[in-house]
């Protein structure tokens, strides 16, 4: 298992953003659904080692990120795309991805090659020298994906990765996710249930800091049978689970 979480919690002041989560994930694409404020981003940030848990245990890639040495090893094998991607407007696409390749301690001799591959995989090869400030929102998102995958991570965490992508690019991105999931654990936090249905082998639904559903997309669809709210089977399953959790 690449991700082993037991009783994980995170508090921000008085707010319990994550209120005890148990989760295990191995290679594959793992979808994380939930309404706004459910705690998805906080959970993802803990898995990305950006913030520490308030309580509970967290093991990533067989290591405890609480100590510096193992955390550094995890970060070498980690890719992360946050919901709000910051960037340096003066950098070009290639420079931005190269910067993160170097920070992730990709061997220097391999950096040019891995940068090229990462940029090609998100279909920005023709924009490699383009300044980030001139790119559209969707293209910036793809640059964010490129920096997340440049080190061929074993654990890839993506928060709203398809935001701003057009339908064609979303289809291509799902194919990329499935390919990445063959070797790595990919955790995708999204509001788009069709992304989950198309790419994920496992899905968890969070609400108010807890996981209220964990299973396959088909299991989630089954939960929605006979439920009226939602335009698609997965949406009905999503609504049904939430309604049950809140009742």
């Amino acid at each position, binding site marked *: 298992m690449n991700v082993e979480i037991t009783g994980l919690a995170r508090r921000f002041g008085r707010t319990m953003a994550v209120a005890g989560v148990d989760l295990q994930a191995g290679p594959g694409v793992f979808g994380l659904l939930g309404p706004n404020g459910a705690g998805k981003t906080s959970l993802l940030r803990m898995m990305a080692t950006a913030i520490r848990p308030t309580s509970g245990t967290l093991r990533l890639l067989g290591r405890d990120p609480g100590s510096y040495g193992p955390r550094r090893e995890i970060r070498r094998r980690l890719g992360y795309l946050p919901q709000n991607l910051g*960037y340096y*407007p003066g950098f070009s696409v290639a420079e931005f991805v190269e910067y993160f390749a170097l920070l992730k301690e990709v061997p220097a001799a391999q950096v040019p090659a891995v940068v090229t591959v990462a940029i090609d995989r998100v279909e920005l090869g023709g924009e490699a020298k383009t300044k*980030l*400030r*001139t790119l559209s929102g969707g293209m910036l998102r793809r640059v964010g994906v490129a920096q997340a995958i440049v080190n061929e991570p074993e654990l890839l965490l993506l928060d709203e990765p398809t935001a701003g992508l057009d339908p064609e690019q979303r289809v291509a991105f799902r194919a990329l996710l499935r390919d990445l999931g063959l070797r790595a654990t990919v955790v995708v936090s999204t509001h788009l249930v069709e992304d989950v249905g198309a790419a994920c082998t496992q899905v968890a639904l969070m609400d108010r800091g807890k996981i209220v559903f964990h299973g396959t997309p088909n299991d989630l669809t089954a939960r929605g049978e006979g439920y009226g*709210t939602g335009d698609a089977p997965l949406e009905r399953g999503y609504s049904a689970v939430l309604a049950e959790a809140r009742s």
Partner: protein
Amino acid sequence: MTAGTARKVPAAAPDREARLAWPPRAGMRLLRLYAASRRVPVAIGAIAACAVGLRIALTGHWDSYGALQLPLVFEAGAAAAITITTASPLGEPERVTGRWLPFLRLATTLALTAAAAGALTAAGIGAHLAGGTVDVLRNLAGMTGIGLLCAAALGGRLAWIGPTGYLVVGAYGLYTQWHGPALTTPWIWPARPPHDVGAEMCAALVFTIGIVITSVRGAHDPAGE
């Protein structure tokens, strides 16, 4: 959101009277929110720190051009703090709103400049403030104008380049009054005597141009910020 729970949104009030009928409280609230978005409270704190620093520094003995360079340093700091407030964190959504934005920019800049002038002048009360109040007003207004022009060209967050660069120029100009040849151009107004009309006009002109440009157009908004 569900269709069942959505509240009815009242229809927009189209008539002109309704739009113009702004209660004063709303105006003050708008001003307060605008000031918060521009970090005006922090700027006021920075200006107060400049005034306190000047007051403390005036307890020491400063002679010849050092006595004139000292207040110039704090005037530059205050001018930089004023002009940095022109930076907008909100970008395009704010710029495409109604007509109040230029007035808000103008009012904020004028109020901060007046506050800075008052604070720095008060810091000199009871101490030997070389150049006097006129010097403070002239230098502060001029350097604020330079900062506003920088904000218009480079963006509010980089507006400090103007006042701090001019600080070096002004300090050097003062130095040349004692170690010639003296720089006498009115465009280096800190080096001119306090009641030099040419210097006052230059400083006022720069301030006026800067405040007009930044009030009407706002600070330059770099793409991506």
